[in-house]
């Protein structure tokens, strides 16, 4: 990768830099708005990874791996799985069936807090798992080839 002063795709870098946090923010919007509109953990996870992949495309795979290490990506995937299953355990402990959100908070009949937050937590697990796995797959493929040199663009 060329030094910061000599490279000639400065436009790409300048445009990408502000885009990346916005993409990540949009992912969270898709996640939390999944209740009311199309979206949810899976889509949000993919969008978050898009931000990191864009970073890796513009700044190179090595800085991306420094920012979000592959071990972190793998752990994130496992953590997501565990969050999902833990919500199920929680509902079992509260006396309901597996993943029965209604019982999570011991609320009055007709209350919807359990359904609302239960699905958000489960989807958060999905978000982590999807983001972690997608990123791990991307690293596994991208990490194998030699970096594209500046002259090859």
């Amino acid at each position, binding site marked *: 990768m060329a030094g910061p002063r000599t490279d000639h795709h400065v436009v790409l870098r300048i445009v990408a830099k502000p885009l990346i946090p916005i993409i990540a923010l949009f992912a969270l919007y898709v996640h939390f708005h999944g209740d009311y509109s199309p979206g949810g953990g899976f889509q949000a996870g993919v969008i978050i990874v898009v931000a990191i992949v864009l970073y890796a495309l513009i700044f190179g795979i090595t800085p991306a791996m420094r920012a979000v290490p592959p071990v972190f990506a*793998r752990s994130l995937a496992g953590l997501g*799985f565990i969050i*999902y299953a833990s919500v199920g355990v929680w509902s079992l402990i509260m006396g309901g*069936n*597996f993943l*029965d959100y209604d019982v999570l908070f011991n609320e009055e009949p007709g209350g919807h807090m359990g359904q609302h937050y239960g699905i958000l937590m489960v989807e958060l697990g999905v978000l982590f798992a999807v983001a972690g796995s997608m990123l791990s797959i991307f690293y596994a493929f991208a990490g194998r080839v030699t970096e594209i040199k500046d002259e090859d663009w």
Partner: protein
Amino acid sequence: MMDWILQIAPAWAEAHAPALLILLPMLAGPLSAFLPGGGRLAWLLTVVVTTLCTLLSIILLAQVQSVEGGAIISYAMGGWAPPHGIEFRIDALNVLVLLLVSSIALLTSIFSWPTIKAEIADGKRAMFFGAFQVCFMGLLGVAATGDAFNLFVFLELSSIATYVLVALGSGRDRRALPAAINYLLMGTIGASFYVVGVGFLYAATGTLNMADLAVQLQDVGGNRAVQVGFAFILVGLGLKAAMFPLHQWLPNAYAYSPSFVTAFLAATATKVAIYAMVRFLFSVFSLDFAFEGMSLAFILAPMGIAAMLACSFQAIFQADIRRTLAYSSVAQVGYMLLGISLGTAAGVSAGMFHLVNHALMKGALFMAVGGVVLTYQGTRIHDFAGLGRSAPWTMTAFAIAGLSLIGVPLTAGFQSKFALVSALLESGWWWAALIVVFSSVLAVVYMGRILEAVFFRAPNNPHKEHKEAPLLILVPLWILAIANIWVGVSGGFVYGLADDAASALFIGGAS
């Protein structure tokens, strides 16, 4: 005895057994992937989880058997009542499969540690056990679920984990990588076919719950979409079950994956796919559909017979023992399909009985081969010469399982082949019975070749001193070998389970 189990089991375990069965490996899988200690802790966790799952399966069996004729346990996931929510539905048929998968998983995971230490790199072992538990969870899920689409999800979970497990055999033999890719392509095609078929059924009926599908399908019986869906599902599950001629992925996947994975997969993966096929053939679709009767007589039976003959012949000409056993597996799937294709209670119960017995014998055979791979590094018949003297315990168990595979009296294989032949004769298929006997003669040839080398040939490697497989391998191996004899001498218990399974399908009708 079953009442006694229900009395000592805690109430929470009884109420939530179907969910816990999936939940335990689901939690432990990712957890064990991160455990430190070079995989030893992950292995211990795997053994604990498979033990608990076996206990849960026994509890489920006790619950199913607590009612005359077999209870049906329905568990609504998330509290959403079926048919709208996802339902886990346990009856006499799938409790048998659950018990088989979890107990084989327990025995093979005890067996696994010495072979994993030799075959898998240090840093990958924890992840390996994580992948194994995901695979285990998927197989249990396929067997437990009562929802057609949920079955697809679990089928893919287990398959994707299986591709990883097969590919990890590359530490020992690089040919594991093409085998895994091949399996991935074929398996994905199979899963896609299945899900397309479910899509057609959903389009025709508007439901995904199997019990509800069975009711709805009665009304739309002759619909073309239903027939197309049926064909897609049959082919998709046939691919997963290694139904001849869709078995091409199997020999290499079994031959080059780690010993542990081979022993586990050979005893469980195709069995679960066959269970799913039986579930669709007899419970979701009912036998009154003319096209289904045709498919049984003109597809399953000829394919089963072709597998019994062609793959037994192929098994004879393999130099590698694991490939011999793999081709023999496809041939044995043929026996099960032949039994199922009769479409009678006796035929299906013979098929299910053979399914269990085949898991017992192939599990033992592949475990013994794994033990030899560990101590002598070789899987060709040539490498096995004279091992009867250098490793008598390992090889005696191997021989018992091999005789059971042939179908020698007093072994499990004899009992199930006898049941199959009687079911065939009962339906007047005497020619098929003759083919079963002929195919058993082929089994005598390919197993005889191996056993002859093992016991009567001089070791061609002078360094073959007396070296037995470690105790962790011998104990589960002998448990399976003794199970083969026990089922062979008093087939009552397992045959009773298979019979209950078949009658649950035929008497329970749509349930």
